[in-house]
C-alpha cells in the first residue's frame, strides 16, 4: 500500500514541526521545571528525568516559602486574584465604552471623527514610561494611586484602542442595508444596534476582548509603579521570587504555569466565537 506524499507536503510538515517546537518547547520546559526543586533545575547537564515534586505549588498556595535563609511570605494567590480583577474589569469597561464608540466611528461621518479615532490609537504608540511619572503625581494628588479603580483606568490605555480599532473594522464589514432593513421593519435604533450590529460583530468583539485581556494581563510597568503589594498582579508579584537566598526557579515556573492558565482557558473558550461565521452570507454582490 503505497501512499503518495509529495515532497512539498513533507517540507510543510517539517516546517510546521520546527515552528511548533520553537514556540512550544520553552512552555513545555517551564511546565517540567515547575515540578522540580531548584537543585534539580540547576544541575548540569539538565535532564528530563526526575522525581516530580509538588512543593513549588504547595508553597504558592500556602503562601509560605522555605528557603535556605529562612521562611518567606508570598502573596501569589492574592496577586493572581488581582490580575483577574484588574484584567476582566478593564476589558469589561473597555467593551462598554469601546463597542458603541467603534460603531459610531464605523457608521457616522462626523467632524474630527478620524482624528479622534487616531488619537485613541496613538495611545498605543507612546511608551508607557513616557506618561508614568506625571501619572504617579496626578494619581497621588487625586487619591487614585494604589486603587483598583486607578489601575483599571490606566489599563484603558491598553484595552480601549485595541477594542475600538478591531471592532470598528468588523462593524464596517456589516452591510448597512442589513441595519436599514431592520429599521424599516419597525425596530428602533437601539434595538437595531443590540439585535443586529452587536451579534454580527461578535467574532470581532470576542477577538478584541481576548487580545486586550491578554495585553492587560501581561502588563507590568503600570502595575509596578502605581500599585502597592496588595493590589499587584502576578506579573509584578513574581518579582518576590528573586530572593536574598537566590532566584527560586521552580517557584517561578509554577507561578508561570498558574498565571498562564486563566488566559489559556479564556482563549479556548473564545475560540468558537473567533471562527464563528465571518462569511455568514447575508448579502449578495
Amino acid at each position: 500500500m503505497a501512499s503518495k506524499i509529495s515532497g512539498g507536503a513533507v517540507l510543510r510538515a517539517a516546517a510546521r514541526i520546527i515552528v511548533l517546537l520553537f514556540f512550544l518547547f520553552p512552555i513545555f520546559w517551564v511546565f517540567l521545571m515547575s515540578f522540580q526543586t531548584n537543585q534539580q533545575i540547576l544541575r548540569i547537564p539538565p535532564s528530563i528525568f526526575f522525581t516530580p515534586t509538588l512543593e513549588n505549588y504547595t508553597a504558592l498556595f500556602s503562601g509560605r516559602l522555605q528557603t535556605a535563609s529562612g521562611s518567606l511570605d508570598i502573596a501569589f494567590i492574592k496577586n493572581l486574584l488581582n490580575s483577574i480583577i484588574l484584567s476582566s474589569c478593564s476589558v469589561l469597561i473597555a467593551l462598554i465604552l469601546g463597542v458603541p464608540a467603534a460603531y459610531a466611528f464605523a457608521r457616522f461621518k462626523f467632524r474630527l471623527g478620524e482624528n479622534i479615532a487616531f488619537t485613541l490609537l496613538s495611545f498605543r504608540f507612546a511608551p508607557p514610561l513616557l506618561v508614568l511619572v506625571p501619572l504617579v503625581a496626578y494619581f497621588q494628588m487625586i487619591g487614585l494611586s494604589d486603587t483598583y479603580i486607578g489601575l483599571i483606568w490606566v489599563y484603558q490605555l491598553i484595552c480601549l484602542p485595541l477594542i475600538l480599532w478591531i471592532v470598528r473594522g468588523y462593524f464596517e464589514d456589516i452591510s448597512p442595508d442589513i441595519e436599514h432593513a431592520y429599521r424599516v421593519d419597525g425596530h428602533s435604533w437601539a434595538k437595531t444596534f443590540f439585535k443586529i450590529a452587536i451579534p454580527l460583530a461578535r467574532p470581532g468583539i470576542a477577538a478584541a476582548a481576548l487580545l486586550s485581556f491578554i495585553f492587560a494581563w501581561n502588563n507590568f510597568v503600570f502595575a509596578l509603579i502605581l500599585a502597592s503589594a496588595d493590589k499587584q498582579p502576578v506579573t509584578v508579584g513574581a518579582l518576590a521570587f528573586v530572593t536574598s537566598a537566590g532566584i527560586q526557579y521552580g517557584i517561578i515556573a509554577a507561578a508561570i504555569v498558574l498565571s498562564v492558565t486563566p488566559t489559556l482557558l479564556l482563549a479556548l473558550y473564545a475560540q468558537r466565537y473567533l471562527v464563528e461565521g465571518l462569511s455568514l452570507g447575508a448579502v449578495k454582490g
Partner: protein
Amino acid sequence: MTRLEIRNLSKSFGSLRLFHDVGFAVAAGETLALAGPSGGGKTILLRLIAGIMEPDEGSILIDGKDVGGVGPEARDVGVAFQNFALYPHMTAFENIASPLRARGTETARVKERVTEVAALLKIDHVLENQPRELSNGQKQRTALARALIRRPKVLLLDDPLRNVDAKLRYEMRLELPRLLAVADCAAIYVTQDYREAMGLGDLVGILRAGRFEQIAPPAEIYTRPRSVEIARLFGDPTINLLPCRPERTAEGLQVEIFGRPMPLPLHFAAAEGRDCLIGVRPEHVSVGLQNGPGSLPFELNAVTPLNVRAVLFLRDAAGTELLATCPEDDALAFGRGHHRVFVTIDTSRALLFDRENGQTLALPAAAQPLAA
C-alpha cells in the same frame, strides 16, 4: 386615492446633484416602475422614501401626511433590498417575522402570517434554514416576503431580480404583478431592465441625469417617447433612427429617406427645415417580395425568429441598415439567405427628434393605440 406623493424633492452629495425638483404620485394598488441607467439616483430615491436618508429639499407624503423627519421604523414602508439584506444570524422564519415582531404581534398570529406569506412565495419548506443555506432565489423570496408580510402602505422594490438567475427572473416577472395586486400598496419597482419596467409598471418613470425624463403608462412611453433616448431604450428590436430634414413641398410636408421623398403628417410642421432624426418602429416597416407603389428595394440579410414575430435585418444599396418585424409565418416566405425585398415605411406613425438635443419635436395629437 394617492398613497405616495413626492413633491419637489432634491438631493445632492457635496457638489454632485443627484436629482433636483423631482415629483410624482402613486396611488394605492398602483406600481411605478423606475427605470434608468445606474447611478441615476434610483436607489437613493427609494432610500429617501424609506427614511434611511433625508432629502435636502422637498417633501414625501404617505396617505397625505408629510413623513419628513419620521424615522424609517414609523413610515409603514416595506423595502426589498437589491442585496437582499437578510439577517444572517436568524432563520428565514425570523427574518420574515421581523416586521410583525416589531409590532408586538402575538406568537400564534406571527406563525400563521409567516406560513401564509411563505406559501405564497413557495419558500415554506426552507423557513427553518439560515440565510447562508438558501439559494439566491430563496434569499430573494425571503426578502420579498419580509417586505410584504405586514402589508405596508408603500412597497419599495430595489431591483429585486438583479441577483437571481434567468429562469427565476422570468418566473418572478410573471408572479410579481399578482403579488403586487394582493399587497394593495403603492409600489415602486426599480429596475435597469426596460422590458421588466414595461411589463410590471402601471406607470413607467425614466430617471436620467437627476430628473424624470418622462412618467407615463408603458404604452405611452412606447408610442410617445419624450426623447430619442427613451425611444431607443424602450422597444425590442430597437427603433430605426435615420437622419433627415423635413421640407414643405407642393405635396405637403415631406422627408427624404433612402433617397426617396415620403409624406410626413402635418403635426410635424414645426420641424420644417431642421436637422432631425426620424424614428420608425420596426413594426411600421412592411416587407414584401413584390415591388409596389412607394416601396423601396432592400436586401434582406437575416431573419431572426423571435417567438411569434420575426426580426428582419435589411440593408439598402447605400448600406444603410433597417430593422423590421413581421409575423413569423410571413417570414417563412422570405426563406433563408440574402435576397431582394421591397419595403414600405409607414411614416404617418413615425417619430421625429431634434438631432442636436434628442428631444421629441412633435407628438401626435392623441395617443395612438399600442402597436401589437
